[in-house]
């Protein structure tokens, strides 16, 4: 079951994790809905984010110890799970950002050369 669509998820995985970490780092603790809303806001064009896949990223990050989830009340009085970035999450974000930059730069250069 998992194997069939794992290709798609895996492809997105690193990126999505990075995006979520970054969002949490800049915005402070957020629940899944807040994150989804934020991501949609930031994206220039329709992100096409399946909100369900967000949950996969959230559980992954929490298991790696990069985020920590706590149940809290929202302003509207609803109970929601707020995710906050941890210290090791911050370190990981730095490393991942650096890696992403290098990769993106490399891909950019490659595309420019070929173009």
């Amino acid at each position, binding site marked *: 079951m998992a194997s069939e669509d794992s290709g798609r*998820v895996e492809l997105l995985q690193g990126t999505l994790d990075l995006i979520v970490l970054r969002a949490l780092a800049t915005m402070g603790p957020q629940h*899944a*809905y807040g994150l989804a809303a934020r991501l949609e806001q930031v994206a220039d064009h329709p992100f096409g984010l*399946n*909100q369900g*896949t967000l*949950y*996969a990223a959230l559980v992954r990050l929490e298991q790696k110890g990069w985020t920590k989830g706590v149940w809290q009340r929202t302003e509207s009085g609803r*109970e*929601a799970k707020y995710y906050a970035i941890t210290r090791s999450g911050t370190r990981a974000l730095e490393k991942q950002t650096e890696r992403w930059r290098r990769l993106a730069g490399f891909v950019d250069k490659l595309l420019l050369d070929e173009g």
Partner: protein
Amino acid sequence: MSGLRHFWLRLLNVFRRDGAERQLAKEIDAHLRLLQDDFERRGMPPAEARAAARRAFGGGVEQAKEHQRDARSFAWLEDLRRDIGYGVRTLARTPGFTAVAVITLALGIGASTVIYSVVRNVVLDPFPYAHSDRMVDIVVKDASDRIIRGPYFSAPEFLDYQEQSHVFEDVVGTSVDVMHWSHDGGADRVVIAWMTPNGFTFLGVPPMLGRVFGTADAAAGAPPVAVLNNRSWIKFFGADPSAVGRTVVLDGEARTIVGIMPPRFEWNIADFWLPAALSRSDDPALSRTSRAFQARIKPGIDLKQAEADLNIIAARRAKEHPADYPPHSRIEVITVIDWVVREFRGVLYTLFGAVSLLLLIACCNVANMLLARATTREREISIRAAIGATRGRIVRQLLVESALLASGGLVVGCLLAYGGIAALADYMPRQGVPWETQIRLDRPVLLFALVAAAIATISFGLFPAVQSARRDLVAGTNVAGRGSAGRRQTRMRSGLVVAQVALSIVLLLGAGLLMRTFVKLTNVDLGFDSRNLLVAGLWFPADRQDPRVDQLAFYRQVLDRVGAMPGVRSVALSNGRPPFAGMGTEVKISGLAIPDQSSALVVLSSERLIDTVGLALTRGRQLTGLDIEQSHHVAQVNEAFVRKYFGSTDPIGRIVQLERLKRLPVPVADPTFEIVGVVRDTLNQGPRELPAPQVFVPFSVGLPWGLTLTVRTTGDPLRIVDTVRREVQGLDHQVAMVDPTTLDDLIQRVFFARPRFSLLVLGIFACTGILLVACGVYGVLAYTVSQQSREIAIRMALGGARSDVIQMVLRLGFRSIGLGLAIGVAAGLATNTLLVSQLWNISPHDPVTLTAGVSIVLIVGMVACWVPARRAVRVEPIVALRHE
């Protein structure tokens, strides 16, 4: 670090599913509500807002959950967990089926684990010594592959091989001897082993108490030391730790015990190990200068390479000492394990083969049961397939159930094996089994059990599982659809019965042959009455130079005093244990031309030996007390001797010359004797051999250092041992009484222990096998009958006779049994030839065994068929039809 943590959390989540699921549901619920709030704020009515929220969530809530689940844990593992849970529930619903399957598998797995533990601990890894797999003996073989010398070699030869070879890591030289140990409580004969000082380093076993000896202890002028065997420590010192440091006087020399070895250290089965270096200048007359050459081969060098290296040295030595190396002789390197275990290995491998058959029968049985059950589960499986389970998924589910059964079988089997090993250890023969052996359920054996269970799972589970999954959907869901699929199944199950019957007849035939051998052996008339006979050695210290007269007087007193004890019928002395006693000697008979190599066993005996052992005098007279006292040169011979050398002529009064007596410690100057009597034959070589020619002469003509006392008692011979010992030591406290035992015990141990062991084990396997077969045949027929109850009911309702129905069922059963018998007998006749070395006086194709084996299977098969057949005719037509 975080990678590992991630992995563990995922693994943990497989088992913490419920909490995580609840959390997730709650979280998604909150998400949806927040979305809904948003939409409501924009002015949507609540119901619409909820729908919009769900739409906006995208991809469906369940999919989100599935994504999260995949990320959270291992999907396949979670599936497995679900399968196991489901399997446990399914099996628990049919406790009878589960119990029978588990017990069947436990029998198979348990039995094979027991035998594997024996094979492993006797043949594969019996020794507690370091790198024992590389330990070898060397021997010299002649052109006809016979061992002519070795592993004992004289010091110069030993050292040549040690110093000039390049293939050994280390070499140890051991020489076994018997010594007289005089102590305050009397005296004992102990086995000692002279060992080169590197011995304990070579063997790599640290002492349990104290220290072992080293080079310094073997140096000239070093204080004499000894290292004590654990078994002897318990026997002689009652396991008293203060034995270390005590002094023992062995053959007149005081030695300090410096250490005690742990249990299982039985190098050369000695009581004491003594240090002695080896030197070319040693006196060749000393027994310790001749040593067994035992070495550890360097890693990476095989036996052939080692032999090639040693044969170069042998060629050199052969030039200098042609007498030691006949033409075409060569060195052979034999591993110590091979040297000790030799033919017992064959017995164990046979048993291992047999137990594999048993395991196979057990697997067939369980496969059969699973097939039967698969039919009743047809609908369940069809429904699963219909709602989208792949064939692989169904097979996996069924295999998990099989694995659960096998795990149950494994656990119960290991318990059975634990008990079985303890029980079997008592029946293990001593001969051919290293004394170091300890049969136990250790880790490799448990691993073996695990592998056996895994193989069993595949072999009994895969086939029915694949069969079930292949069933087409329509046939299953359709209630009446018991057409072709059912028939195919029945055929398959009959095939399994055929296999079971065939395997079990193979086992039965083997066990039958061993039983016939054993019965024949035990029924052999040894030619004397072995009951109520006590035998014990009496030994003088080797360093005592008693005049012959004194020794004679001692022996005379022993005979008189023991003879007068209550409960003693008769008493006698001989060299060696009668009737198996005697030294080999060349024989010459005056006035008779017999071949040069003629030989006989000469027994130095007291008067009444023939009576005491229970032999009959057929001609002439007995040896008398006067013959002994005056050392008359008279002899009794047995019938075999007469047959061989005199034929039909009368031997009485003829003169025989027994050359061996010239080479006694105190030689007999004139070894000629007049034959005065003829004694009936006994099987003096054991029950498997023909009697050897034997001559009895007065022991007083050439007193050896020790004699065996034989006492015939009225009751249990072991009860008088202590009294006899007191009498003997009262007469001379330096005389040791050695190994008192009953002759019956000795005979059992030496001649019957091994066949009994094989018979016992194979017999148990055969019985278990036939029991399983009965279950298998019964199961198939009972199932068939229940499936055909409608057909039978209609037949009966239409006036069919009961006998017809019974015949129909029996015919069905016997078709499989007959085919199985035919295959099994053919296979059995082939495999029985593997048993030849364990058989005696019986052909591997023995018709009696064959008939008996076939009859047993037929009778068991008949019973197994009869019960379902009876049940079939008891079917009430109305009930059966209404049931449909």
